[in-house]
């Protein structure tokens, strides 16, 4: 775990320092003389050997300092703190929507295995995984903004709107907590399209997992026992089938996160969503390496932590592993 985290900083650091394009030149601006560029480079330690730069970076990292973004000219830590809540809000709703829809579809498909419902359910799942998120996002814009004018094109709020007071950074939550109903509906209408674009992949992956595990638990003896006891179908489903079918669903959360991270990257840049994915993308394009490194690092650390939590949760949810 510690090794992996260290490795992550190592890989991202060396990747970001081989980026073509001179960061000192970028920082100094296009009109700067070579002397000024050299001065700026010296100021930021860019003329030092890579090993020295890495050592300095790690020292700063230990203090929670991610350096300055050349692009926004603010500390990367501040940037990430600003942009992360927007991404969490977007990805959170996408995960929720994809998960709930997948649960319904997968259960219906598993109960009617081999019928048309099942085939349709599986087809939608594979379609969810097959449709590129960036194309789905554009298509949704095309249909629901350009043609139907139902939803806004992008952003988190209308340009003129004042955001609700900052509490959690999640606009839908903050606006409800402070009673700004107008902001709430505004935020929701901005969320709809990007959330759908992101949720498709989550849905596809989840339907496959849950369908198989529901089919597996339907064949188990405890389900037959529960049915023989005369429990209602709904109760058997809730208490016995779904509870056991949830286990595999938890284990894929790590994969879901990887899928969401990729989706967030393209979907945020299409919807001009002021989140971490958009930030990282702009940083990569501008060879702003402190920002690239910081964003990649945060995403990778979240990924490692989520996988750890999944392992622990699995231990907790499945007593057979705990005692084995």
């Amino acid at each position: 775990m510690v090794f992996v985290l260290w490795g992550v900083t190592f890989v991202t650091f060396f990747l970001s320092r081989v980026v073509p394009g001179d960061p000192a030149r970028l920082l100094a601006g296009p009109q700067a003389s070579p002397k000024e560029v050299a001065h700026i480079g010296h100021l930021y330690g860019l003329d030092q050997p890579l090993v020295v730069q890495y050592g300095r970076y790690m020292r700063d990292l230990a203090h929670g300092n991610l350096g300055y973004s050349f692009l926004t000219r603010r500390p990367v830590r501040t940037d990430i703190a600003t942009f992360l809540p927007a991404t969490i809000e977007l990805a959170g709703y996408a995960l929720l929507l994809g998960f709930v829809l997948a649960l319904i579809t997968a259960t219906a498909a598993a109960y009617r295995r081999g019928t048309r419902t099942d085939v349709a359910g599986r087809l939608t799942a594979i379609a969810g995984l097959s449709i590129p998120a960036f194309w789905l996002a554009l298509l949704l814009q095309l249909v629901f903004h350009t043609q139907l004018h139902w939803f806004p094109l992008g952003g988190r709020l209308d340009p003129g709107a004042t955001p609700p007071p900052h509490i959690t950074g999640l606009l839908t939550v903050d606006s409800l907590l402070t009673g700004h109903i107008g902001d709430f509906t505004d935020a929701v209408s901005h969320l709809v399209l990007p959330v759908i674009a992101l949720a498709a992949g989550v849905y596809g992956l989840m339907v496959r997992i849950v369908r198989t595990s529901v089919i597996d638990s339907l064949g188990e003896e405890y389900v037959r026992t529960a049915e023989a006891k005369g429990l209602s179908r709904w109760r058997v489903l809730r208490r016995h089938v779904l509870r056991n079918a949830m286990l595999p669903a938890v284990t894929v959360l790590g994969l879901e996160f990887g899928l969401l991270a990729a989706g967030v990257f393209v979907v945020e840049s299409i919807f001009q969503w002021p989140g971490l994915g958009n930030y990282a993308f702009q940083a990569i394009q501008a060879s702003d390496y402190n920002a690239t490194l910081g964003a990649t690092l945060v995403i990778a650390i979240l990924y490692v932590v989520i996988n750890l939590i999944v392992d622990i949760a699995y231990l907790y949810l499945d007593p057979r592993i705990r005692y084995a």
Partner: protein
Amino acid sequence: MIDQAAAVGRGRPARPAKGRLRRAAQTVEAFISESRLNALGVAIVALVLLVALFGPLIAPQNPNQINLIAILQHPSVHHWFGTDDVGRDLFSRVIVGCRISIEAAIIILSLSVTFGTALGILSGLAGGLADECIMRVTDLFLAFPGFILAAAIAATLGPSLSHTVLALAVVFWPWYTRLIRGQVLSLREREFILASRLAGGGTMWIASRHLIRNVMPILTVQLSLDVGYAILATSSLSFLGLGAQPPSPEWGAIITAGSSYIQTAWWWITFPGIALAVTILGFNLLGDGLRDWIDPRLRGSLGGVPE
């Protein structure tokens, strides 16, 4: 003794080619009749491969032919998918672009499968320090969400299709290493491997003769599931401007160009996107079907994204 064992192994009579062909046809037929989704997958993949092979012959017009008197034309009899901002025929571009995606996927997967499998076998057979080192490096690569790492590598190398392909291969191989190593670890304790060792089979012999053959089914399944993902990732990176550059008719790149005209030319992003989605859908259906068909025990493992 060694020679004898080798002779027994090699001495299997070669099947006549005709019988093999018929057997292959029967296998495909059985696979198709198993499920309607399998049939759909096979049909789409066959069509896509044909278009990839003969694309330049099928395309009615030169995909890069600029025609300034026919810019942003609606889909019509002359231009089935309409035209773009410099009057290029989008149908021809989509047809010709098919090969780019397929080629990219083939290169990505051959690179990562070769490298990943070799390391996996090495790691599983060698054990000890070598195994430990290889697995630590693998863990390191798997600690990143793949797409983010690929984007970072592609950006570092500079935007181009070949760099994107290389970046994706770098991201894909650890999955194969882990998969194959797990298989090798369980296989190497099996009787037939021990027997081969007792008969004097060297490590290279065991690896090439027994291990590769026995990991083939699971490798095929994983590979077929990954084709769709490789195409998806390539086009996504191209869409972000990190992959194929204009005027390449790569589907992701066409969609990027069309996204600025979303208000005026709906057809520009729509048709290349349909082609892309249907292609990925076809490979995913095929992979999913193959997984259930080759090894029913694998049901429930994860498709599309490498496990």
